[in-house]
């Protein structure tokens, strides 16, 4: 009787990552699977830890901007935004209104670019090839705009303490204005391709539900939190920059499942386009930078500034010393870090194939998680 194979369920441990197409970078998951069901998950991060916080302590305030570009490397403008706002808060500096508009326009464009990337890679994750091509066509156009503004397609290093590096190039706003309707149409095309696809609905509806309580407890933020039904957007709850002057709505989901997270992001693209249109109408000529020294020596103090990055609540905690060119301590509070914390709870009991959609819809960037 001994040689009859056991019919007890056999679990085996699957090592997903750090090199795996679904982990979008260098995330490592140790998944215990029972057949195709996930019974337990252990998340390992730190494969992209570059010690940015330590590096910042040795750089001057203006050099640090380029380090922030490398945190969330698909939303560079948004990263710079938080940092320069933190320094300005300690300095008590006012930013010229035109500079604020330029910042908001670039940040919102970057949010669209980031969400388009999310859309494309989610398509790839669930096996649809075409979305990524549609999304990247528009993303290329947006990056051409970034290049015309900052001279770089990705690591822009464009914002400065007290303003921005340069004024917008000639004809930028007109060109953007004529491009936005095309972008809107392209986003609609993307929407038609995936949003109500029957297989896509089957794959994402009711999958990877992040309960409201869990989301708040883990301090999940941004679209992931809003998909769980919490109407919380830093641009609305703690308005910064010129957001009080702008009209926009906050899309929220109801179930907190993968489809809601996807849908919230697609709606946010529309809202961002709306915001940019208003900015183009309101922007006026003027100075783009206050009179700031090249060597910044802020007074002793500390500031915690949060902005709404495409991935959520991105905070910078800055502690300075009197008359020092370098900060005493910088801590970046990254939204992806907190989203990943909720992963272990979300994955339990789901199918292995759904792990891919859940990872995709959480939309984390490892550069920001590991810093």
């Amino acid at each position, binding site marked *: 009787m001994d040689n009859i194979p056991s019919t007890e369920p056999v679990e085996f441990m699957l090592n997903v990552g750090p090199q795996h197409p679904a982990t979008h970078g260098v995330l490592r998951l140790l998944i215990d699977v029972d057949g195709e069901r996930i019974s337990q998950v252990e998340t390992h991060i730190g494969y992209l830890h570059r010690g940015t916080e*330590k590096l910042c302590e040795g750089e001057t305030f203006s050099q640090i901007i380029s380090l922030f570009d490398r945190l969330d490397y698909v939303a560079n403008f948004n990263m710079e935004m938080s940092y320069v706002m933190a320094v300005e808060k300690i300095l008590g500096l*006012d930013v010229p209104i035109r500079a604020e508009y330029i910042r908001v326009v670039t940040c919102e464009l970057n949010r669209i670019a980031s969400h388009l990337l999310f859309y494309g890679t989610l398509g790839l994750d669930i096996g649809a090839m075409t979305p990524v091509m549609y999304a990247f066509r528009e993303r290329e156009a947006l990056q051409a705009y970034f290049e015309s503004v900052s001279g770089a397609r990705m690591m822009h290093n464009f914002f400065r303490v007290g303003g921005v590096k340069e004024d917008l190039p000639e004809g930028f706003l007109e060109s953007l204005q004529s491009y936005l309707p095309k972008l809107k149409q392209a986003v609609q095309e993307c929407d038609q391709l995936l949003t109500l696809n029957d297989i896509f609905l089957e794959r994402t509806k009711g999958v990877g539900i992040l309960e409201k309580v869990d989301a708040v*407890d883990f301090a999940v933020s941004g679209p992931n939190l809003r998909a769980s039904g919490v109407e919380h957007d830093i641009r609305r709850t703690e308005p910064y920059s010129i957001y009080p002057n702008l009209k926009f709505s906050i899309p929220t989901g109801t179930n907190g499942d993968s489809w809601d997270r996807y849908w919230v992001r697609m709606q946010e693209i529309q809202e961002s386009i709306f915001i940019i249109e208003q900015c183009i109408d309101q922007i006026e000529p003027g100075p783009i930078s*206050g009179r700031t020294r090249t060597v910044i*020596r802020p*007074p002793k103090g500390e500031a915690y500034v949060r902005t709404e990055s495409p991935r959520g609540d991105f905070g910078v*905690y800055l502690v300075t010393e009197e008359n020092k060119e370098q900060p005493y*301590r910088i801590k970046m509070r990254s939204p992806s870090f907190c989203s990943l914390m909720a992963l272990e709870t979300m994955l339990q009991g789901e199918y292995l194939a759904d792990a891919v959609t859940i990872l995709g819809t959480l939309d984390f960037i490892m550069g920001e998680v590991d810093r």
Partner: protein
Amino acid sequence: MNGNEGAEDQKEQRREEALARGAERRRQREGATAKEYPPSPLIQSIVKTLRHLSVDTEQIMDEVIVRTDPESLIETCKLLRETAELEFTYLRCLSAVDYVENIEVVYHLSSLEHPHKTVVKTQVPTESAELPSVVPIWRGADWHEREVHDLFGMAFTNHPNMSPLLLFDGFEGFPLRKSYKIPEQKEGLGG
């Protein structure tokens, strides 16, 4: 010898004062003056809630800062989270700052129900860096505490899993402490 040192000290002090005055003048010239923030109404309710605990509450810029000692940290956090008019359910950020003798752990809290925010700070001596964990209060503190443990060598008691998060197993030292020396690296391959 002694007098000489005193003279050096004085010189150093004068230099620093001059630098500070210069910086102040520069800031005024650049139009960067300290902004006035309205006093926050939150301060009263926090003081009322925490009156039986040894805490200091003050407002710096627009932040309400609650300074507490490590013993009453858990009590403070619990009250901040559970009191009806405060409801700080959302732990935004947990970070640490190394002030050489002390390590300060900073909790940035906010509430989704009310439009207010606060900062809880506590200091422990660097030699015996140990704090109770707030994971039972906010589950989201989990990885933040592991990160602080990695980078500052702070031990959090009652934490469910205090394994390294960002650094690899067997990493020596606590990189974000000011006393940490970055190891020399050789140029070229194999460094």
